[in-house]
C-alpha cells in the first residue's frame, strides 16, 4: 500500500492557509496571555517566592507557561480542524477521497502541531523580554516541544470525535501539573497523585531541557511522553478505521 502523500500535503497546506488567515488572532492572544501570566505570577507571586531550585521564579515558570499554551493551543487547533468540515458538511470530500485514516490524521495533526510549535517559539521569545533565560539543552527543548505539540494535537483530533471536551480536561491537568511550581513543594500524598498526571512529565522534562532541574528523571519524562504519543496515535487510528461517528 502506497501512501497518498499528495493528500497529506493538500490537507496540511489547506489547514496552514486557514491558520495564516487568522494569524493575528492566533498570535496576539497567546502573547498577551503570556505577558499577563508574567505580570500576575512573576511580579505578584515572585515577590514572595524568589526562587525554586536555585532558579529565579520568573524564569522557572517559563517552560510551564509554554507547555500550558502548547497544550491548550494544540488541543483547540486540532479539534477545530477536524470539527470544522463536519460542521460545514465538507467532510463528504474527505470521506469520499482515496485517503486512509492515517493520512487524514497526519495532515490535520501536522498542521495543528506546526502552529503550536510556532506559537511555542513566539512565547519563548516573548518571555525573553521579561526574564533572562538559559536553555541548557536546545535539542531536547525542541524535542519536547515537537513531541508535545504532536501528542496533544493527536489527542484532540481523536477525542473530539468521541465528543469529549479536551479543553475541560487539559487546563486543570496543566495547572496541577507543576507548570507554576515544583511538585516537590506538595505534601507527599499530592506528590503521588501528581505522578498520575501525564502533564507533570511533560513540564518536568521540558524544564529540565532549560535548567537541568526536574521533578522526575528526564528519561522517565521522555518515556511517558512517547508512551502517551503512541496511545493517542492508536486511539485516533482506531477511530478513523472504524469510521466511529463519522459515517452512517
Amino acid at each position, binding site marked *: *500500500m502506497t501512501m*497518498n502523500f*499528495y*493528500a497529506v*500535503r*493538500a*490537507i496540511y*497546506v*489547506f489547514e496552514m*492557509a*486557514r491558520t495564516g*488567515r487568522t494569524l493575528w488572532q492566533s498570535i496576539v492572544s497567546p502573547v498577551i496571555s503570556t505577558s499577563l501570566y508574567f505580570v500576575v505570577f512573576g511580579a505578584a507571586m515572585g515577590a514572595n517566592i524568589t526562587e525554586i531550585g536555585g532558579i529565579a521564579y520568573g524564569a522557572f515558570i517559563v517552560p510551564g507557561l509554554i507547555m500550558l499554551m502548547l497544550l491548550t493551543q494544540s488541543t483547540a487547533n486540532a479539534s477545530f480542524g477536524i470539527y470544522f468540515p463536519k460542521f*460545514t*458538511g*465538507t467532510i*463528504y*470530500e*474527505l*470521506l*469520499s*477521497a*482515496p*485517503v*486512509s485514516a492515517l493520512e487524514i490524521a497526519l495532515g490535520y495533526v501536522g498542521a495543528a502541531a506546526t502552529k503550536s510549535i510556532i506559537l511555542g517559539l513566539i512565547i519563548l521569545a516573548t518571555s525573553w523580554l521579561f526574564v533572562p533565560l538559559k536553555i541548557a539543552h536546545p535539542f531536547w527543548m525542541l524535542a519536547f516541544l515537537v513531541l508535545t505539540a504532536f501528542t496533544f494535537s493527536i489527542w484532540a483530533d481523536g477525542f473530539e470525535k468521541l465528543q469529549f471536551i479536551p479543553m475541560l480536561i487539559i487546563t486543570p491537568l496543566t495547572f496541577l501539573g507543576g507548570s507554576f511550581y515544583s511538585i516537590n513543594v506538595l505534601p507527599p500524598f499530592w506528590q503521588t497523585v501528581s505522578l498520575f498526571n501525564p502533564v507533570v512529565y511533560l513540564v518536568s522534562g521540558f524544564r529540565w531541557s532549560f535548567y537541568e532541574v526536574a521533578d522526575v528523571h528526564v528519561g522517565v519524562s521522555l518515556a511517558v511522553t512517547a508512551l502517551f504519543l503512541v496511545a493517542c496515535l492508536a486511539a485516533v487510528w482506531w477511530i478513523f478505521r472504524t*469510521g466511529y461517528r463519522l*459515517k*452512517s
Partner: protein
Amino acid sequence: MQPIISINGLSKTYATGFHALKGIDLEIRRGEIFALLGPNGAGKTTLINIICGIVNLTAGSVTVDGHDIITDYRGARSIIGLVPQELHTDAFESVWATVNFSRGLFGKPKNPAHIEKVLRDLSLWDKKDSKIITLSGGMKRRVLIAKALSHEPDVLFLDEPTAGVDVVLRKGMWQVVRELRASGVTVILTTHYLEEAEEMADRVGVIDKGELVLVEDKAALMRKLGKKQLVLHLQDKLEAIPPALSNYRLSLSEDGRELTYSYDTQSERTGITDLLADLSRGGIRFNDLHTIQSSLEDIFVDLVKSDLVTPDLVTP
C-alpha cells in the same frame, strides 16, 4: 465490455432501522450517461453515497472498474468524482484554493493548466480568486462540480446537480456533461427534473422505496411505455364530440377547435386510419395536425402511480 460499476445485492439499513436500499443489482456501462430517477426518499443519495464511501453498506458489494469499494477503496475512489446534493462548501477559501485542494486530496500532483480549463469550462475563471462565501448558489454548485472534475475522474456522480439552478445555467451544465461524456467519462446523475433525464440520459433507472423498479434504454423506455397523441386543428368549431366517434379516446379543447386522439404506440393498430376515415365521413375537416410523444415524466408517473402521492416530482 466489462461494466464500469457493478452493484450486487446492495442493501442499506440505517442505524434508525430504516431500510433505505433493498437488494439493488445494477451495472453501469462504460461511457454512458445514466439517470437515476425517483421520488424524494427513494434512496438515490444513499446509493451514491455508498459507492463513494460516505455511507457504509449493510450487505452486498460494489466494484468500480474492478476495484471493490471496501477492500480496494483507493483504487475505486481515485477514479470517482462526486458532486453532492447539498451545497457543502468551504467559506473563506478561494475558488482556486478549494479546487486545488480537491485535486491533491485525490492523490494527483498539481496541474494548474487542468484546473484552469475546468474553471473556464464552468465559467468560473473570473471568480477564481473570490472567496466561496461571496458566490451565488449556482456558482457554488459549479465550484462543487469543478472540485469533482479537478482530479480527472473516469466516473462522475451528480446528485441532483441542477436542483435550484435556473434554466440558463442548467442548459450550460448539460453542455458540460455532454462534453464530459464525449471525452469518455461515465456520468451518473440523479434528478427530479425529468426533462433532464430525457434530454441527457442514455439509460434510465427508476428507483422507488429502495428498490430498482426498472432499468431501460431511454429510447426503448419511451417507445415501450410512450403514448402518443394526435392533435387535429379543426376548420370549424365543434360543440361536442359527435356520438359516432365515441369509440375513440378523444378529447376536445375548450374552444372546440382542437381534437386530441390518444393512442398506444405499442399496439398493433393505432386506429388512426379508421379515425381519419370516420372524421371525413362525419364531415369534420381539419387544416393541420401534429403528434405529441409522451414525456418521460408521464412514463414515470405511470410507473410509480401505485403511491398516488408524488408531490416531490418537480417539473421546471
